[in-house]
Each structure stands twice: as C-alpha cells, then as structure tokens.
C-alpha cells in the first residue's frame, strides 16, 4: 500500500511544524463535513423558516426552502399572546442563581474529593456518582412532598435548590483537580495558606477551563430542565421555558410558527453561550481527562 500520507498518519497531531512535507488542505474531508453539517443544521434552519412562515401555508402543506412569505405572526403570537418572554425570564432567573450555587458547590466538593485524604472519601464519591443513575422520575413524588413541606412549591427555589448539587459537575471537577500537581498545593500551604485560601487563590486561578465548563453545563441543564419544573411549578406565570413550551405544544398543536418562534427563544441563549465559551468548554473537557 503506497501510503500517500504523512498527513493521514497524524490523526490529531496539532499541526507539526517542520516535520514532513507541508500538508495539503484535505478537500474531500471538508466537502464531506460541509454536507454533514448541512444535514445537521437543517432542523435548526427549519425552525427559523417555520417561525417566519404564514400559518395557513404550513397548515396547507405549502412550504419551500425559504418561507413562502415572510410573516412575523409566529413571533408576535409567541411573544404577545403567549407568555413566552415571561417564561424565558423565569428560566433565566432560575438558571443564573442555580449556576452560581452549583459552581461553588461542585468546585469545592470536587477539590476535596480529589486532593484531600480522609476516611469515607470513596464512599462519599461513590454515593455522589450513584445519584447520576437515579432517573429523576423516581424522585418526583418524594421530592415534591419535601419541597411542599418546606413551603417552596410554586417558587423559583423549588426548582433551584433540589438539584443545585450536580453529580456530573462534581465528577468533572474532581477529574480536573486530579491533574493538578500536589506539590503546588503543598507549597501554598507551606507558605501559610489555609484550605479555603489555597482553593481560592491557588487552585481557582488555574481552573478557568473547569469553571467555564461548569458554568456552561449547569446553565444548560437548568435552562433546559423539564421533568422536575413540570411537577414543581403549578402556576403558569412561573413556568420555565421548556415547561411552558410543552404546554403550548399540547394546546396549540397546529400553530407551528408560534411554537417554533418560542422554541427559538429557548435555543438562542444557549447557542450564543456555547458559541462564546466553546473553546474554553472543549479545553475544560479535555483537561478533565474525559477521554
């Protein structure tokens, strides 16, 4: 086999300067990727086309690659007739507060589990990881009773607090901190820094990728969460966006422009957030050794 390809040999080497001949642009691969990307993006594109199309045309099956006529009706119904903006505000408030709590809790717990030696450590870690495998549905009833007893039903806290310790986040943080050299922490403590101070001024500055991942993932989880808010929030004015949208979907099954407009309101913030944080996100995932 006449291997054509020092290029192909390097599965994944970051551009090796000065080693081997200069690489050509792999045209075939780019074309294939572009084709796949079009397929992958189509549902998102179709959401936009639908949201901007006249309702009657869709109902009659008149569709094209572009909207048959530009129509703002979908957006205006979603934003004025339905409380989509209110729901988005609820989701945002819940997600922001939850992110703040979760990042602190996850980073602290992950750090201790990675770098401290104490009896019960593996039991604690196992219990936390095991919670990943609990389907939320099994917790809904007892969690509802608990939150009800606490008087939180129909408040943001009902959604924020019960899941503000996130097992996957703790796991990620622990993996990340395992890769930090012990010597660094020991040096800090020899210099007289206490535990909290070490965590704050030595560990945290080295953990930007981790914090970025946790921020983005937690925001995403909370912003997108469905089953628990569905149960915990009774008052439609307090619905989060996914709960509100699923309600619309069941009530206005055929108003696809409005449904897709509402869906876009849900999609855009997370897409923008990921767009901004993508590099950090990928770096954080890689550094956590999840590979």
């Amino acid at each position: 086999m006449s291997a054509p390809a020092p290029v192909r040999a390097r599965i994944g080497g970051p551009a090796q300067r000065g080693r081997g001949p200069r690489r050509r642009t792999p045209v075939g691969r780019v074309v294939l990727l572009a084709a796949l990307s079009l397929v992958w993006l189509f549902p998102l594109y179709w959401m936009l086309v639908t949201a901007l199309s006249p309702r009657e045309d869709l109902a009659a099956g008149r569709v094209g690659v572009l909207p048959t006529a530009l129509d703002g009706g979908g957006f205006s119904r979603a934003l004025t007739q339905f409380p989509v903006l209110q729901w988005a505000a609820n989701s945002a408030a819940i997600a922001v507060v939850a992110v703040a709590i979760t990042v602190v809790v996850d980073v602290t717990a992950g750090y201790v589990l990675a770098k401290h030696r104490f009896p019960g450590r593996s039991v604690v870690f196992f219990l936390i990881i095991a919670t990943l495998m609990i389907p939320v549905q099994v917790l809904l009833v007892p969690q509802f009773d608990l939150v009800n007893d606490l008087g939180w039903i129909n408040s943001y806290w009902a959604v924020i607090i019960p899941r503000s310790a996130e097992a996957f986040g703790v796991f990620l943080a622990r993996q990340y901190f395992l890769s930090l050299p012990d010597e660094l922490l020991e040096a800090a403590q020899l210099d007289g820094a206490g535990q909290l101070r070490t965590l704050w001024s030595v560990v945290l500055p080295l953990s930007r990728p981790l914090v970025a991942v946790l921020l983005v993932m937690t925001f995403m989880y909370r912003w997108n969460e469905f089953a628990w808010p569905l149960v915990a929030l009774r008052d439609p004015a307090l619905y989060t966006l996914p709960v509100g949208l699923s309600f619309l979907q069941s009530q206005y099954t055929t108003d696809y422009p409005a449904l897709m407009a509402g869906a876009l309101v849900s999609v855009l913030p997370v897409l923008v957030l990921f767009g901004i944080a993508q590099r950090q996100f990928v770096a954080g995932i890689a550094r956590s050794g999840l590979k």
Partner: protein
Amino acid sequence: MTASPATTTPAASASAPPPVRRRAPAVRRWATSYALLAPALLLFGVFVLYPLVGAVRISLTNSTGIGEARFVGLDNYAAMAGDATFWRAALNTALLAAVSVPVSLLLGLGVALLLRDRIPGGGLFRAVFLAPYVISGVVVAMTGRWLFDQNVGIVDRVLGGLGLPAPDWQSDGTAASVSVLVVLLWARTGLAVILYLSALQGIDPDVLEAAELDGASPRQRLRFVVWPLLRPTTFFLTVMLVIETFQVFDIVWVMTRGGPAGATELLVTYAYNQGFSARREGYGSAIGVVVFVVVLAATVLWWRAQRRSEEEL
C-alpha cells in the same frame, strides 16, 4: 492572615519541608474536609438520597397521592412481572440503548476523525455538531414532531419527492420509534464528537508515525492503533450514553407521549405515566427504583470488567 488550623502551629518545618498531611492533627484535617464537603453532602443528602429512600418507601405502598397509603410489601414489584406494558417499555428502552449508543459512538468517532487535525473551518464544524446537544429536550422534541409530521412535515415531503414511501410517523408504531431514534441521535451525538476529538488530539503523533513506518495502512492504523488508544473514551461515553438512554424522557414525552399504543413507551415515561397520570404512585415508584438499581448494577459491573481487562493489557 489565615484562619486555618493547619497554619496556627508553625510546623516543625524549619529543616525539611514536611508533607502537608503531617501538619495538623488528623481529626482536624478530616473535619476541614467534611466542612468543605458539607454543602454538597447536605444537598445530595436532603434532596436526592432522602427522596430516594422516600421513593423506595412509596414503592412498598399502594399510594395514590390522596388519602392514606397502605403497606403492600413487594406487591408492586411482583405486579411488573405480569404487566405487558411494563415489558414493552423495558424492551423499548433496551432496544433504544442497543441501537442508539453504538450508532452515536460510530457517528461521533466518524465526525471526530474528519475533524481530527486542523481543517479549514474546524471550529465552526465542531460547533455545528455540538449545537443540538445544548438544546432543550422539549425543543428538540417539538422540532422533531414538526419535521416528522405525517401530514405536512418536511421529512415526508422530501421522501415523497424522492419517490420514497412516506411513513405515518405518528400512527405507525415502528415509524414512530424510528423518528424518536433519529431525533435522539441528532440531539446527543455532539458529546461523542467532542470527547473523541479531544482524545484523538491527545494521541502521540509519533505512535502513528511508527505504525506507518512499519507499513500499517490507514485502516490498520485506525483499527489497531487508534481504536485501542480510544478505549477509555469509548468506555466513558458508553456508560454516559447508556445512563442517559435509560433517562430519556422529554423527547418521548413531547414527541409521542409514548404512543401510538405504547410503541415508544420507555421505562421512565411509563413510570411517570403510572405515578402521575394513573395516580399509581406506588407502582410508578417501584418502576423507577428498578430502573435505578438495574442501571447502577450494570454500571458497577461494567466498570469492574473494564478495570480487569485493563489490568490484563
């Protein structure tokens, strides 16, 4: 300035720097560890483990959520054995895992291989494949429901236009299952792409070059060098994806409600249906507990097997 007990004793450190762990009494250090863990322990304990115990308790009763519940022992668990819908849901869940997990892995690896080294627009392509992963399951399902609408959906129009049969995605059970599968794959393959990509980029190019010098074809290098090196990633992804599959709820709930006629019913949607719609809280909880125990046991066994085979290598 510091409040740490570890530093109040200017440790006997003048000569050789002693390891950190010797500077404070053990019990004090452990107390510090647990103090730092307290928020997590409190949250997991109160809002996850305590309700889990509650769920097990409910699963031993005939609770309807209204009035007094009576203790019925293991009746709810026994009832599953004779419940055809439960077995249907279990089979659907297992099938979904058996199909969607390998396809997600292969698709993710394929895309990651295409993206592997610097390629024009690489970051953009990566973002494209990650995008559906970050969207809410409800929105994914709403979009899926619309794309696959059997009357006016674009999928059937395209299929029709190509002269292919246009299935009834809502009224045909098999077609409905396929539509859920496709939507699920779209929604979560992004994670596999990202993790495989980062693993591929971590492979030492010298290893591949050595294989190439030894005359390995690209395919052989993939099969005998790259794939084994990706094993930890594959293992991790498999575990994550299987766990996720057993918890798929939003997509099915919004897209099909488990229908038509239970064709897309999964264990957790059935548990929810029983617990909330049919008001059989005891039975719904029992199903949930079974899902948890099965997934936990499978994960632990798999983890062990993985570790053993790794030691053998």
